[in-house]
């Protein structure tokens, strides 16, 4: 076990075994929130890594037992606050699956639309912060970061016009969605994704012909196919290691079967492969958004009446597990309903949590500078890790 190894070191021992224990986080520029890494260094090389989580624990699962099916979706968005739409969707899908509630076609398409826009926004944030980790706030990383935020803002503007909120939306409800598209929104959305599509070419030009970027990302943090499956990582990390698995295609939900899209897979397993997977996912998401806007059916947006009171939705007895392909991988919600307006038990499966477990396997042997590069390529969101 690497963490036992880490505790057995002699700090600054001058007897030939000169190891240095260095604390990174929870307050650190590259902690991506509040993550603590206890690094054991031999010179610049990392001998062991001990990770500490839990600084952002907010009792989400207990909270789920005390809030009703009408209230919780807007709280669910606070688990993964970078991709709020995804976690809302997971929760309402679980409730609908137990209650066998039909969701109108239009609502299903709207859910796909916001989920894919959310993936674009989330990947923008990932690219920016990852480059910030590698390039620093006083270098080229900050330039990419600000460019990415410019694009993310555009998507958030769309969400603001749709739901009135920019970060935590409360867009989904059991039985459908809460809001329909405002007038002119579809055209605005088309313009935005067209702009982002063009900007993506600029990013790729800027980064993929940039030697420092390539030597920092290629061959760094290699996750083999076997290790990826053994540890149980998900999402772009898994596909970056050559495993062709995506819930949107392999276990379709919310009419994903109606759309034509590819699942990008890279076999390198390094940071660069994960970067390539995400860059292609950007493009596939844009394709799906366009298909949704083209084929959006008319009709109601919810099979349930509009919400009047918090206890209005009741779900019959039963239990289920619903899963969604979020920007970071499989987001799952295990729900046990007892017939009342509140669930009896709830359990989140956060993609960031399981992805983070790969760090002790791949970090030792790398240099200090690579820790932040690997960490950034994992793209954890600590709201989802600690819940």
């Amino acid at each position, binding site marked *: 076990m690497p963490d036992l190894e880490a505790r057995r070191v002699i700090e600054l021992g001058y007897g030939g075994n000169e190891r240095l224990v260095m604390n990174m986080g929870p307050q650190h520029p590259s902690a991506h929130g509040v993550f603590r890494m206890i690094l054991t260094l031999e010179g610049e090389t990392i001998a062991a890594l001990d990770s500490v989580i839990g600084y952002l624990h907010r009792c989400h699962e207990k909270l789920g037992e005390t809030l009703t099916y009408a209230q919780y979706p807007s709280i669910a968005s606070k688990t993964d606050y970078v991709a709020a739409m995804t976690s809302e969707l997971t929760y309402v899908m679980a409730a609908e699956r137990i209650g066998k509630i039909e969701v109108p076609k239009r609502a299903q398409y709207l859910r796909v639309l916001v989920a894919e826009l959310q993936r674009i926004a989330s990947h923008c944030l990932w690219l920016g912060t990852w480059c910030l980790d590698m390039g620093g706030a006083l*270098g080229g990383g*900050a330039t990419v970061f600000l460019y990415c935020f410019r694009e993310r803002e555009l998507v958030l503007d769309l969400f603001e016009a749709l739901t009135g909120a920019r970060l935590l939306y409360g867009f989904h409800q059991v039985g459908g969605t809460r809001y329909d598209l405002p007038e002119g929104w579809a055209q605005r959305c088309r313009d935005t994704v067209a702009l982002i599509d063009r900007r993506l070419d600029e990013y790729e030009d800027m980064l993929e012909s940039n030697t420092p970027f390539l030597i920092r990302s290629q061959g760094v943090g290699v996750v083999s196919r076997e290790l990826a499956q053994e540890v149980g990582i998900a999402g772009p990390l898994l596909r970056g290691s050559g495993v062709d698995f995506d819930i949107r295609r392999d276990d379709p939900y919310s009419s994903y079967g109606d759309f034509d899209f590819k699942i990008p897979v890279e076999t390198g397993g390094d940071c660069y492969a994960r970067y390539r997977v995400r860059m292609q996912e950007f493009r596939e998401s844009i394709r799906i958004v366009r298909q949704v806007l083209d084929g959006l059916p008319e009709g109601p947006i919810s099979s349930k009446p509009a919400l009047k009171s918090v206890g209005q939705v009741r779900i019959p007895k039963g239990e289920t597990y619903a899963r969604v392909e979020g920007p970071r991988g499989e987001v799952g919600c295990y729900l046990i309903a007892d017939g009342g307006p509140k669930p009896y038990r709830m359990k989140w499966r956060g993609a960031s949590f399981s992805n983070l477990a790969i760090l002790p396997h791949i970090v030792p042997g790398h240099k200090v500078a690579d820790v932040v590069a690997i960490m950034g390529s994992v793209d954890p969101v600590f709201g989802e890790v600690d819940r």
Partner: protein
Amino acid sequence: MRDVIAAFILLNAVVLIVTYLTYVERKFAARMQSRIGPYRVGRPHGWLQPIADAIKLLIKEDIVPALADRPVYNLAPIVFLIPSLLIFATIPFAPGLGLADLNIGILFFLAVSSLEIVGLFMGGWGSNNKYALLSAMRAVNQIISYEVPFVLTALIPVLLAGSLQLSAIVESQRGLWFVAYPVIGQLAFIAFIIATIASENRVPFDILEAESELVAGFRVEYSGMKFALIQLAEYTHMFGVSCLGALLFLGGWLGPGSAHPVVGAAWFLLKALFIFLLVTWVRWSFVRIRVDQILGLSWKVLLPATLILLMATGFWVAWSGGRVA
């Protein structure tokens, strides 16, 4: 007495220019990143921002870590700053406009500017902080390995001009700037810029500051005026090296109307600013590279390349009878 007054004026001018270089860089970076940059303090375009920054740092609390090595910690910013200011003693801004035009000017420049590593290491060691210590270790690695190619590239103009005196090097560029010499001039200039970036510790070679790994490196424990001094020293050094580049490769004060010292000095500062902005441009478009990659680049690529270049220049000078320029 005259020299003391001249030194006083020069020091203040340098500090003022350097203060405004930070403003130029911030505006330039902001443009690159589709931002506006400093805007609020002073109209138009926040021109008072550097002054406001200096005042803010002056009135901040000065914190010394409890377990710091106090004398070393307190001395480090000064030891870091003095060599950076000292290098301006030999820089000729225009014919006759300079403090001391030594006949070994460039040697003095290189010798003094490499002293900054002492202050840097003192800061990293004295802070008693692990980030600072790692940063100091990296600093020694990097600066020592880039000092060699830096000196070698600076020797190429010396060979071409046949003099170690900076004003003589400039005068021998009257026909053609050294950067315009076929092949050798351009390659030497590129090598010089790379070595400059590395010796200035800027992205992609800023592993000692590395705020995403080592928070702020050797200066992580410094606050208030000591931090300001370190910052000032860094920018002063940067400006000094840009000046050296302008003297060695871009013909110093030479330009239309440069017979007048003011016009000559203006040309010189413009050229130094050009090199500064070139370095800034690189800084804001690349990501940082790793410590082992930086050392590899220095010893495996830059050092052999500059050695070969120096040898080629030597052959050329010898072949043309010792008079190239």
